[in-house]
């Protein structure tokens, strides 16, 4: 992880501790001190990890407005009966509320996908930031095509064929970029420190509009408008 | 999906409003009732997941157009493999909801 942090923030400009699959600390982004909160090692997010994430966000809020960087690497929610019994959806909703509070309190929020961002885990943690960037080699998905084929009872070959034509259901950072859910895909040769600083200088939620511009989601924006203005 | 449209003679409807009846789930269908220009004809548009049953559809829909005052109506059907009995039932329900006596 140190190598990644050095590249993102510069050597000697970060102090981030890890515990289990959770990472938390401070780092300099440009000339600003930021809070860094994240998961790594394709973490499965259970109630305990969810509580750590929300606690870290609330701590940051109590310190007053400053940038918050989420680093997401999650295989999705933990799949156990125990977590369902606890009401893991409620723990995820609590993360979402904490993120929203941070935004309302003037924190700028950026998510960096470093590895995997899957389904419910991504939805709760990361997807609600103002800006989402993906590191090279990252993967974003709801479900892989094989499992999707099993559940929808549509031939895998058909899905594979359609996945080449449409960004709407198949896994892939590029697809999510076209749909407007990922703002930037970084490359290996980029200066990540510079890119991170400039990501934090953007604001607002224009994902549906971006998805329309990029040709990935042609209906979301006009339909929402149609209902909102009817 | 198999799609076809039929235009059937029917006695002019007495009154109607737009209505949607039924749900597109396995063995079920939805029927959308709307107004359409020609007074003594009923236009029926079918989209069904069960292929090769057009004859049966035509029989059921002909019965419907004969037994109801459905002239001037446009019925649009999304079907997910309903039996003829369910189709007849939904058509009658849709017709009732749309306010035609």
């Amino acid at each position: 992880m140190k190598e990644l942090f050095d590249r993102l923030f510069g050597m000697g400009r970060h102090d981030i501790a890890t515990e289990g699959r959770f990472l938390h600390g401070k780092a300099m982004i440009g000339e600003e001190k930021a809070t860094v909160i994240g998961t790594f090692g394709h973490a499965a997010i259970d109630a305990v990890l969810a509580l750590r994430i929300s606690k870290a966000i609330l701590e940051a809020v109590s310190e007053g407005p400053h940038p918050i960087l989420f680093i997401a690497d999650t295989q999705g929610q933990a799949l156990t009966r125990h977590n369902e019994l606890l009401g893991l959806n409620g723990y995820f909703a609590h993360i979402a509320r904490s993120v929203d509070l941070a935004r309302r309190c003037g924190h700028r929020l950026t998510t960096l996908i470093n590895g995997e961002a899957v389904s419910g885990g991504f939805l709760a943690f990361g997807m609600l930031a103002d800006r989402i960037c993906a590191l090279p080699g990252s993967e974003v998905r709801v479900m892989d095509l094989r499992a999707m084929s099993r559940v929808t009872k549509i031939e895998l070959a058909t899905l594979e064929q359609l996945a080449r034509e449409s960004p709407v259901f198949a896994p892939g950072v590029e697809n999510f970029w076209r749909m407007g859910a990922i703002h930037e895909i970084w490359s290996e040769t980029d200066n990540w420190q510079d890119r991170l600083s400039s990501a934090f200088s953007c604001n607002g939620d224009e994902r549906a509009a971006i998805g329309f511009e990029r040709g990935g989601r042609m209906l979301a924006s006009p339909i929402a408008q149609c209902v909102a203005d009817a | 999906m198999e799609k076809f449209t039929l235009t059937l003679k029917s006695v002019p409807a007495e009154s109607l409003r737009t209505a949607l009846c039924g749900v597109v789930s396995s063995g079920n269908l939805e029927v959308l009732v709307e107004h359409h220009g020609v007074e003594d004809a009923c236009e029926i548009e079918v989209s069904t997941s069960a292929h090769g049953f057009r004859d049966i559809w035509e029989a059921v829909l002909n019965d419907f157009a004969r037994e109801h005052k459905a002239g001037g109506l446009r019925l649009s059907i999304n079907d997910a493999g309903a039996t003829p009995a369910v189709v007849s039932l939904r058509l009658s329900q849709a017709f009732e909801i749309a306010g035609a006596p």
Partner: protein
Amino acid sequence: MSYFEASARTRILGLVDAGTFQEFCPPEMRQTSPHLARLDAPLSFDDGVAVGRARLSGHRILIAAQEGRFNGGSVGEVHGAKIRGLLDRAMTERPSAVLLLIDSGGVRLHEANAGLIAISEIMRALLRIQAAGIPAFALVGGASGAFGGMGIVTRLCNEVIMSEQGRLSLSGPEVIETVKGVEEFDSKDRALVWRVTGGKLRRAQGEATRLVEDSIPAFRAAAKELMESHFLHPLAEKSLHDLLEDQERLSERSIEFSDARDGQAVWDARLSDSSRVPEIDCEEFNRRLLAK
């Protein structure tokens, strides 16, 4: 009339004041899913959700109802955009409440990416209206329950009204069984599924704020009562203090029930009498909850 058995449209008509429902983006506009069409799958003229405005007890509300029997009430691009548009509308229309009749397994896999993004947009829009002082109520009592992203959306609402048949959770039991095996979660064991995700468990935990009988009038009465109590105690924005309290509560639950895998453990801790809970009616359940 049973809420569970009713269609989305029947639920709306039974919940709101007679003759007041006005639908936006109605079925005759035929805004169907182009993605289902590409897969040659059946379409629905409303893409499985009806949205509009109405009155409840004379008060203006906005309402959305998912049709749980159309593709499991799943959220695709159009379906999700209709709900988000309704929430955007709430910002200008300022209704007394927004009612979300949730009946959904979550993201529609046929258009998974669009569905996931749509749910994240619904979450943001929901948080925005709440910050503007407009309360949102989730009603859960349909066959598809409230799962996946819609389980999260449900818990973002200010009030959650459930029947005992309603199910509220994140991952469906079938998904857990497929990935982790039948010994982790036997999705065919209906009684177990219900003890882990059902209305009586969620009410005992405080995840649901009302437990009602499976009838449309019972849901209507609860929604009306909650709307009126929100008039008396208008919604304040959630503060840091509120969220720290939530943090504490959720944290305590995860410690208190750190080994629990069956709802009986929660009933034992939260009810004055936890015997034969599946058999008792709502009135008896609510009495036992209050008595503790």
